[in-house]
């Protein structure tokens, strides 16, 4: 299981725009790099990232080989209710990873 790190405020005021930072460990092999024998190393990347806030999708990104290794993504959302942020990464060779954090709205 890939290591995923999430940075989001745990307690926020209602209606506040918060920044969410995500980082996941992944080599993001481009498929364009030759190995020592000259053959290209097969592509192995994360192709999709989805963030859901209490089940509702708030951010989605389609990733290409041009994304650096250990994909880092930050984005924003409006904190309007206490609940859970779910993060989901999926990619080549059946790669999937999930992570979630709780958020308290006052």
């Amino acid at each position, binding site marked *: 299981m890939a290591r995923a790190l999430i940075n989001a405020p745990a307690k926020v005021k209602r209606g506040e*725009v918060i920044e969410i930072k995500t980082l996941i460990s992944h080599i993001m092999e481009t498929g364009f*790099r030759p190995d020592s024998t000259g053959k290209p190393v097969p592509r192995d990347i994360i192709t999709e990232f989805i963030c859901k806030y209490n089940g*509702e999708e708030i951010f989605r990104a389609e990733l290409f080989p041009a994304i650096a290794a250990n994909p880092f993504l930050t984005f924003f959302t409006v904190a309007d209710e206490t609940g859970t942020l779910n993060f989901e990464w999926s990619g080549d060779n059946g790669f999937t990873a999930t992570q979630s954090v709780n958020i308290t709205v006052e």
Partner: protein
Amino acid sequence: MTRDDGKLQRTRRRFLAETAALAGAAGIALPLAVEQTSATPESMRAAIKNIVGEAPLNKGKVKLDVPALIENGNAVPLTVSCESPMTQDDHVKAIHVFTEKNPQPNVIGARLGPRAGRASFSTRIRLADTQKIVAVAQMSDGSFWTDEVEVVVTLAACLEGS
């Protein structure tokens, strides 16, 4: 030691000599090989057209933030932000980023909605060469806005396996 090592050294020496001899040829062959796997301004335009279709592409509203001089193309911080109130009626639906000379023109395609609050995201990208980067934002009213930045890359993201 000795006998096997001697053999090994000889082959290593021969290998080095051959490599040196080939370097001239490789100088011609390599750019060709790279060119095959590189996007071009045309393929970038095609990739943009895939998203935009026939709709007009306006300059403004969206801002692409990348350092102008990049030392290491393997992880380049990139931020795209867009002027928008992010309400149900007027928000940014998607932001796409393209490059001219990476192996593929597409870099990232992000989908947002009114729940985002602020139309902005950051990531780290790879850049294979000194080139132009283009961001295209799609608004909820169907209009497209764009911004482009020229960047200079001193150390390219690895393509040759180095």
